[in-house]
Structure formats: C-alpha cells, structure tokens
C-alpha cells in the first residue's frame, strides 16, 4: 500500500488542478509566439503543393488562436495555437523535403552532365 501512496497523491493533486483550472487558463503567449515563429519559418520556404496547403491551414489556425486570445478565450486559443504550430511544422518539413527533392534531382542531372562532358567525351 505504501507503494501506491505517491500515485494516489499525484492523482489527487491533478484532479484538483483540473477541477480548479477550468475557469482560469492563462493567456497562451508562449504557444502563440511559438506558432507564429513556426508559421514564419514555413512561410520563408515558400512551400508548394501539400506544404502550401499545410501552411494555409497553419495560418488559419493561428488566426483562430489570435482571435480567441483577443476574446480572452485562452483555452481555445491554446488549442488553436498548438494546432497551428503542428501544421506549420508539417508545412516546413514538407517544403524542405520538396526543395531537397528538386535539389537532388538537379544535382543528379548536373553530375550526369558533368560526367558526360568531362569524363565520357574526353575518352
């Protein structure tokens, strides 16, 4: 029984926090900032295709988050900010992958051309 005592204590504290916190969620400033930075980072990559769609999604959710924060609906703002950051992260990764795909394709073609021009033709 002594082994279960800390678990019971934690559960009790968490329950108290949940019950008491519903009414007083603080402004999700950090989450909004993080979401904003993530959107900016994704936007800097000028994504196309699926990444572009993800970025649009992120922007829309960031807008929702800001609007909710302005209306002091912090819980809703927090959720939307986290969603915006996740969507922006997805957009960033997708955009980076697409850019690298194009880069690899370009470099492979460049190497083939170099090999043909410098090594094959020279024979």
């Amino acid at each position, binding site marked *: 029984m002594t082994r279960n005592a*800390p*678990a*019971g204590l*934690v*559960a009790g504290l*968490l*329950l108290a926090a*949940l*019950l008491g916190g519903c009414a007083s969620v603080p402004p999700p400033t950090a989450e909004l900032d993080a979401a904003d930075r993530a959107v900016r980072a994704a936007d800097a990559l000028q994504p196309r295709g699926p990444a572009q769609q*993800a970025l649009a999604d992120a922007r829309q959710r960031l807008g929702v988050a800001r609007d909710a924060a302005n209306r002091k609906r912090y819980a809703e703002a927090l*959720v939307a900010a*986290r*969603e915006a950051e*996740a*969507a922006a*992260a*997805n957009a*960033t*990764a*997708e955009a*980076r*992958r697409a850019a*690298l*795909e194009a*880069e*690899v394709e370009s*470099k*492979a073609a*460049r*190497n083939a051309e*170099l*090999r043909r021009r*410098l*090594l094959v033709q*020279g024979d």
Partner: protein
Amino acid sequence: MRLDRFPTTARRAGPAARAIAAAGLLLAVVGATPALATDEVDPAVARLQAELARLDADAQLAGMGGVDRLKAAQAVQALAVAKSKERASAQFIAEQRVRAAVAAAQADALARQSAELDRERDQIMIDASRREAENARREAERLRTQNLARQEEALRLQEEAEMERTARAETFALAEQARADAEQARRLAASREREAALAREEAELASSLVAEALAADAPLPPSRSVGPATVYTLAGSAFASGRATLTTEANASLRRLAMEVGGRSIEVVGYTDSQGAAAANQALSLRRAEAVAAILKESGATGSIRTEGRGAADPVADNGTAEGRAKNRRVEITVR
C-alpha cells in the same frame, strides 16, 4: 527509435501515466468522459503508431528526423490519452506531427543524398582535372616528340645542305682547277705558239737569208731585149701544173731579178697553154703574174708593177706537143 517506448495506454505506462489514468477514472466519476476505455486501442492512434513504426523500420531513414519523430511520438501519445473534447485537436496535431516526422526524415535523407551528390561532383571535377592534366602531359609529350623530330629533321637538312655545299665547293674547286688547267694549257699553248711563231720567224728569217743567199747566186731568168726594154721569161716549169706557186729555183731567180731592176717599172704578163677552159686559163695566168709581181715587190723592186693574165694567147710554141705547151706556160717580165 521504437514506438514501443511510448505505450499507447495508461495500463502499460509508468506510475505517472497510471496516475493520469486514475485521474481519468475520477473525471468519469465527476461527469467528464475519457476518450476510450483504457483497454481499447484507438484506431487513429494505432494507425499513426504503425506509420511511425514503418518509419523506424526503414533502414534508409534510420536516425533521421529525430526531433520531429520525438514530437510525433509525443503527439500520438497525447492523442492516446486525450479526453473526448480534446481528441479532435490532439488527432489533428498527431497527424501533422507524424507527417512532419516522415517528411523530415525523408528530407534528411535527401540532404544526405544532396551532400553525396556534391561529393560526387567534386570527385568528377577531380577526375576531370586529373584527366586534363594527363591529357596536357600527353600533349606536352607529343609536342616534345614532334619538336624533337623537327629538330632531327632540321639537323638532317642542315647536314644535307652542308654536304651539298661541300659538294658544290668541291665541284667549284674542280671547275676552278679545270679552268686553271685550261688556262695553264692555254698559256702553254700560247707559249708554244709563240715558240712556234718564233721558230717560224726564225725559219723564215733563215729561209729569207737562205733565199737571199740563193738569190745572190741564182741565175736571172732567160731574157731578150725588145727595144729599150728587157723581157725576162719564166718558163712554165717554174710553176706546178695548174697552180700559181713558184718553185724554189724560180723564186730565187725572181729575187735576183728584183735586185737587178731596182726602181724601174715592170710589166708582168702571165700565159698558159691551150689546154682547159679559156676563162680558167686566163685566171690562172693572172694569178701567176700576180705571184711573180709579189715576189718582185717583196724582194726589192720599188718601181711600178703592172700585172696581166692573157691565158692561152700569144703562144710561142706548138700547143700540140708537151714540149710546146711547156714553153707556152710562162710569165714574161718586161723591165723598162
């Protein structure tokens, strides 16, 4: 990274997770409903976990997209424990995070591939440089060989030119020698010619002296007086038949006669026998008269000398006999 390290249910989790599960049960008691019963696996969670598991199993993507994978696993875990009212958001976030993890891992792999392509490009450039250097070395070697061949050719041509020059010089020397020999021969010949001329002059002088000596002793040609003039007759025997050359005796007689006549005027008339053509006889008689006149003049006759050829005219003997014809072949010298 294995997803197994992120248990999907509170039942398999550690003490903290179990506490969260207990809290969920308490929430159920107070009216809040948990997303699912803890012994059931959320299909969305399962799907996302499977997706992450596939990502982990991909050897080519091993160790790539680490941070995004971690965040994805955490998001899936959060979905697994999300309350029903948070579920939609948690699922959205988990979906985005898992996609981001896959894309990030693939992007890392592509970045590695891109770096490899850069290295490959560098290697190609190095190989090309080596090849270029090798080609340059070969070209230099080729040019060196070519230059050597040209030098050898130039040397050969120079030697040939030298040989040709030497040959020309030798030929020139031979020609010069030949010219010198010819000049020497010419000088020798000239010298001999002079010697011969001197000898001839000497001989002529001797001959002249002899002739004069002979003339002094020679008899005058037979003569006759015709009025105040004296007519000397050179018999036909004084000339060779058909010619105007005098015999030595006749020559000596004429020289003697020239000494006698001095500055008196002389008329020389030549005759032939009747044989042969008249014109030929006339010409022969004139040539004989002129030969006689020439000897007289060079032997001391200083007066005027007239010559005439009368051919077979005025015969003095019978042309029918040899003796008569010999008498008719004559030159008459009239001295006045």
